[in-house]
């Protein structure tokens, strides 16, 4: 496929060639022209075999026929006009859209933050981390159970419209391999009787219809409601789908009666429910561009700091009875850098299981999805010679159940993609690529230990050699990757999309 510029170029070349071919006829005519003509003393035109000859001929003619005080400015004028045109075309590809700029995004983010603080005053049990865990469970089960009889187990968590909508869809469709990439609270609304939270979810899943599967990447906006003024359930009832009354795993009748405790769970009275959800973006996920590298766009962007960071730092120091200036370098070395190197080493070697204990379930699933996608395309993403140049503490959140720290890590590494034969298919294994990322670590409130003991289970002390996909120690059956024992990495956000 040739683009418009190439087409124009070929057209000009054809035209020049054509003129060269027919020029002898003109010459004859010109000789016969009243007033006579001039003989030509040098150079000869080719037959127009190539466009380069024509342009070279044109420049040659300009310089040979015209005196320097005309020919030089003439060529300069053509050159300038060409450049002006190129620059104009470049500017004209820009599009202005009614999307928020950096400042507006920052202001919106701050607004959401203050709304969360407002919610925490009414509901001291509210924890963003736990809420998003709940959203993740609902999203996952919604699609896993879609069109199956288990879907009724969601009845206490779905609004009437959502239940009606779900019944319209063909039960021949099956959704599997659901991976949530990121979740973000996009709106919080307070009404007299209702509190609402909208969450944007980036995910991908496989949809199978009549044994034919398609992988989709999508963004959806889910709107949750609950009665105003109620308290969020304790973590055990938020981290998995459970009866908000007795805490038993979700097993409900069509009418929302818990099979375990017999309580009818009315939507929104004890727990959040989905009022509506809609697709914002949906595309078929293709692996053809996996080895393609775009230039880093956000490394030079200014760091976004939380407005109330210092207040939280003081609060954190008091809570743990520590001196921030002493604790910070130790945290940087033992947690941030250590985790960074270990996780990316495991990523490069496709051995993510080795760092299972350092990653939350959602992040692990997301990493595994990409590793498997690379694998299925016969590729591996390698990160070598990793070097951290700077770490900036940008954000801290403290709530009743969890504390989180977000840092911006500036690093560089050889970042490239190889195929099965070891051939580099994208990136460079010679030139380091500088980048920055925002990493968010979480830990259960009240836990004092920072770094993870990599060789043993933090609960039973048994060797950490049997930690399954779910992050559970097979010796004692304890889940060790939920921040109950030390910091775990929960979110990685690219610098160009981080808003705070």
């Amino acid at each position, binding site marked *: 496929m040739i683009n*418009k510029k190439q087409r*124009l170029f070929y*057209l000009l070349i054809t*035209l*020049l060639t054509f*003129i060269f071919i027919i*020029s002898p006829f*003109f010459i004859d*005519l*010109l*000789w016969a*022209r*009243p*007033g006579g*003509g*001039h003989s*030509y003393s040098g150079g000869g035109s080719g037959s127009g075999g190539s466009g380069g000859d024509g342009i070279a001929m*044109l420049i040659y*003619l*300009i310089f040979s*026929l*015209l005196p320097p005080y005309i020919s030089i400015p*003439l060529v300069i*004028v*053509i050159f300038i*006009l060409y450049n*002006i*045109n190129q620059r*104009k075309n470049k*500017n*004209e*590809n*820009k*599009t*202005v*859209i*009614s*999307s*928020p*700029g950096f*400042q*507006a*995004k920052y202001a*919106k983010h701050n607004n959401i933050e203050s709304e969360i603080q407002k919610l925490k005053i009414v509901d001291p049990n509210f924890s963003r981390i736990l809420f998003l865990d709940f959203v993740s469970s609902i999203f996952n089960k919604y699609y896993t159970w879609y069109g199956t009889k288990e879907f009724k187990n969601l009845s206490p968590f779905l609004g009437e419209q959502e239940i009606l909508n779900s019944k319209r869809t063909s039960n021949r469709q099956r959704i599997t391999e659901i991976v949530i990439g990121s979740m973000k609270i996009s*709106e919080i*609304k307070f*009404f007299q009787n*209702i509190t*609402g939270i*909208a969450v*944007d979810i980036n995910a991908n899943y496989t949809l199978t219809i009549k044994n034919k599967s398609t992988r989709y990447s999508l*963004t959806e*906006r889910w*709107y949750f*409601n609950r009665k105003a003024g109620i308290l969020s359930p304790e973590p055990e009832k938020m981290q998995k789908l459970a009866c908000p009354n007795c805490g038993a795993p979700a097993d409900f009748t069509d009418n929302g009666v818990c099979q375990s405790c017999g309580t009818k769970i009315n939507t929104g009275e004890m727990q959040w429910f989905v*009022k*509506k959800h*809609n697709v*914002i*973006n949906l595309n078929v996920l293709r692996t053809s561009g996996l080895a393609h590298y775009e230039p880093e766009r956000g490394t030079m962007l200014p760091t976004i700091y939380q407005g109330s960071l210092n207040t939280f730092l003081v609060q954190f120091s008091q809570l743990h009875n520590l001196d921030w200036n002493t604790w910070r370098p130790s945290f940087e070395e033992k947690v941030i850098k250590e985790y960074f190197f270990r996780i990316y080493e495991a990523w490069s070697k496709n051995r993510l299981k080795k760092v299972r204990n350092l990653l939350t379930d959602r992040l692990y699933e997301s990493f595994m999805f990409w590793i498997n996608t690379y694998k299925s395309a016969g590729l591996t993403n390698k990160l070598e010679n990793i070097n951290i140049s700077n770490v900036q503490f940008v954000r801290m959140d403290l709530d009743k159940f969890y504390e989180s720290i977000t840092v911006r890590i500036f690093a560089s590494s050889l970042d490239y993609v190889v195929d099965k034969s070891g051939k580099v298919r994208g990136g460079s294994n010679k030139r380091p690529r500088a980048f920055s990322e925002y990493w968010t670590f979480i830990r259960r409130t009240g836990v004092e230990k920072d770094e993870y003991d990599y060789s043993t289970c933090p609960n039973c002390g048994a060797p950490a050699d049997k930690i399954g996909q779910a992050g559970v120690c097979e010796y004692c059956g304890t889940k060790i990757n939920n921040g109950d024992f030390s910091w775990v990495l929960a979110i990685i956000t690219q610098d160009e999309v981080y808003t705070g």
Partner: protein
Amino acid sequence: MKQFNDDFKSKLYEITEDIENNSLVEIVTLIKAKSGFYRDISLWAASVSMFLVSSWLMFSKFEINVYLIYLITIFTFIITYFLTEIIKPWKRFLINKKRLKRNTEIYGRAIFQKGGIRFTNEKTGVLIYVSVFEKQVFVLPDRGAFTAVPDEEWQNINENFQSIFNQNNTADAFLAEIKKCKKIFAEYIPPVENDINELPDDLEVDL
């Protein structure tokens, strides 16, 4: 396009948010430098000028070097082509008005479809597409919004938007016009309590 700077973007976003808070409509504004390349026009202009110049040279009473004739002819073509590409009012003058309007509409409809503006439950998405070179504004409401607002109001909205190109500062005139829409949308498509925006803030439209 210089008028549509970051300051304009911030103001536009604020106004859009204000309208959406007071109405169920979801407005997406998109401003593009042009809805087509129209290179054929520049090539036509270049060819015509080349023909005229070569004709004049052919029958001129002045004595001109034969290769200079050849050179001037080609040079005329190149210069006219680039000048037509660069001087926008001249290029616009050469293009049929219907074509300018039709191209804007085609582009606007494509953006509406590709941008997913139709993905609102109540079909209340409204695209306001501004094509600067064509000096055209194309307002495309989704079915719900289209039927909720009387046609007379839509015609007024369209006419008012079209008048922004008669003002000195197109960007400010555009903001003033979009502000006026708040009242109309609030009156005919009032907001629903406990609802959310269904279109993303960061709409990606790559055509």
